[in-house]
């Protein structure tokens, strides 16, 4: 192919007649999604924002201005849930991405046998229904006679009170998230890996690069967009954690595994204060936006050099 060096995203449009003609297709392609979001998300989004300025007591909703937001600052459970989410984020996401990347890289190697089998084994956790996997994990993590403690006993470790101990409950939640989603992220990274042309590996080897150098200089940069995707979505997932702790620990023991979304669910569906729940939600949106923006910024493509030019 001829070498047409272009910046990612195409050349600047809008300035020439050709450019103007080409800018509009972007809008057309996005139109179905735009229309659907407009139809179905606009109302609930705005409604929840408006709702956050109301408070409900005894079935009566009164507007309370920013009282709900002020309450966020004083509510110890909000702070605790954010800290818990932060701890889980900092431990679980890097762990999972590293695992997913490592597994995907090994599975991508040509010398590997039983590739499909391994892929299946790792992906399987992601396809289980929440209902089933929560029951199984609760049983497996039971303090007395649970499978995990039985296995630990085989190597001489005392039973761990997984779901009743504040520290171990966090570990249990982190472990179950990792169990469930590593394979899923691996599949996505694998797709990105397989788009890397073989010639690049060859060229690097010819240049004398060792395995680690190939990995860090050839592979990882080309996975940038995919890694950004998995990291950002895993971060959002961690900050929005609900399923695992809802099922396994209910936020306990003593709110050790309470996360913001679980807290807002309890406020909305147990205490029926939808206004305050909305305020918590929008606080979370702000935090997630900042976290994602930071991640995008840190992983931005600093090279102005053209990428993807064929040789």
């Amino acid at each position, binding site marked *: 192919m001829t070498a047409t060096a272009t910046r990612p995203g195409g050349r600047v449009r809008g300035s020439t007649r050709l450019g103007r003609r080409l800018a509009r297709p972007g809008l057309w392609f996005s139109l179905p999604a735009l229309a659907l979001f407009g139809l179905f998300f606009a109302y609930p989004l705005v409604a929840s924002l*408006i709702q956050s300025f109301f408070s409900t007591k005894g079935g*009566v909703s009164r507007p309370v201005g920013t009282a709900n937001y002020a309450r966020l600052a004083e509510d110890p459970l909000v702070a605790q849930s954010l800290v818990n989410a932060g701890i889980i984020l900092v431990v679980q996401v890097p762990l999972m991405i590293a695992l997913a990347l490592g597994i995907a890289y090994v599975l991508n190697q040509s010398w590997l046998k039983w590739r499909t089998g391994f892929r299946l084994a790792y992906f399987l956790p992601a396809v289980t229904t929440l*209902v089933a996997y929560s029951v199984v994990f609760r049983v497996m993590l039971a303090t007395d006679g649970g499978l995990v403690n039985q296995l630990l006993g085989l190597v001489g470790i005392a039973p761990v009170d997984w779901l009743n101990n504040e520290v171990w409950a966090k570990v249990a939640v982190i472990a179950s998230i990792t169990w469930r989603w590593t394979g899923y992220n691996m599949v996505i990274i694998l797709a990105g890996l397989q788009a890397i042309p073989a010639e690049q590996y060859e060229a690097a080897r010819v240049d004398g690069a060792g395995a680690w150098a190939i990995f860090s200089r050839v592979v990882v940069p080309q996975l940038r967009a995919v890694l950004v995707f998995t990291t950002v979505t895993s971060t959002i997932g961690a900050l929005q954690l609900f399923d695992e702790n809802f099922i396994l620990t209910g936020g306990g023991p003593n709110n050790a595994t309470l996360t913001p979304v679980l807290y807002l669910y309890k406020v909305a569906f147990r*205490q*029926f204060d939808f206004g305050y729940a909305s305020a918590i939600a929008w606080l979370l949106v702000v935090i997630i936006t900042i976290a994602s923006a930071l991640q995008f910024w840190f992983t931005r493509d600093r090279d102005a050099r053209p990428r993807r030019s064929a040789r």
Partner: protein
Amino acid sequence: MKRRIAIALAAATALSLTGCAMGGTAPAASTAPAVTASAKPTGSITVWSWDVAATALKRLATDYQSSHPDTTIDVVDIGYDNAYDKISVGLQAGSGLPDLVTIETDHASGYLGQFPQGFVKLDQVIGDKKTDFDPSKWAAATGTDGGIYMVPWDSGTVALYYRSDYLKEAGVDPNSLTTWDALIEAGKKIKAATGHTLMSIDVSSGATFGMLMQQQGAWIFDEQGNVSVNSDKAVQALTVLKKIHDEGLLKNVKGWDGRVSSTKAGDSAVHPEAVWWIGTLEGEMKELSGKFGVVPLPAFGDSARTAANGGSNLAVPAQAKNPTLAADFAAWVLADAKNQASMMKNEGLFPSYLPALKEPIFTEPSAYFGGQKVYELFAEQTGKIPPVNFTSDAAKASDIVGNAVVAAVLNGKDPKTVLDDAAKQIATATGRQIAG
């Protein structure tokens, strides 16, 4: 041009949404809708329930339809686990609910408090039957205006299940377990003789603590709605549990699975639980038949020897399309001795309708319990359950209480201190006063 249109659209949407955002929470009328009894209701209704309750309703719906021409009753099993999500969203949104919903007693006050316009007043249909029902259930189904909003269904009358073989081996007479102190002493004897703990409970759920409070007529909130979780009676209840743990007589298990496994494994000698536990014993632990007996709960002094744990009601949402038929069906099923007795027989649901407790089935001996007439015991106790005031803030309090119970029982803290602390937390969270 486009921008201006966009802004105008956004403004219009926002304005129209101010009304919508409040959804079903704005009071539609100043008083709750009421339904009158009808001699010949017709039409069709949809009913939501779960588990064996749904089975019972489907069966009785067929009977009702045969004896009431031109009626159609569609019973839907919505599952238990997330039923309240559906119900809460429907109440909040003001639409989407059927004509009749099942709501458990411990959720009743919460819904009635938060959605005072959400349900239909049933005074004209069952108002005259107050004394025919379990008092604790009637109280929980009463709204803040004194009207009755739900029809009580089944009662979770609590008694003490015991392993007759363990007690026998230790030489303990079940009828001597009349006070909690006596039970603790017996527990020591049983442990020494058989090695078994006295009881296996899920400490963090706070359910057992609740039973011990309720039998004394105490609760997290008092009759005036003030916070009373740190009252002397509550402290006494928590102290008993702590003592049982400190003497090495308590086994802490987690959740439903934990309790069932522990019972199946025969870990402990006694188990304070509601009448519906019989269904689980007979269903999951057939091999233990003949090894159980039941006595009333031990007392605190001259307190009642029973409490309530569980049980449901039927309620008619205000948005029901055919409230008359719904109310009539509910009353026909639940305020009827024969129908309630049939539900005991077929589905294991213990009636809160007291006249039903005189039916023959309740005096039959039970083989599972070594020939004891267990239902007679529960029937006798049902009319004695002390009512408690759940209030609309039950949900806010339950986590706080659970943590306090764990702190005192498992982590060695002083009961009075943790309950005082819990009372403060609950008061802050709910805006209520602590009872003086």
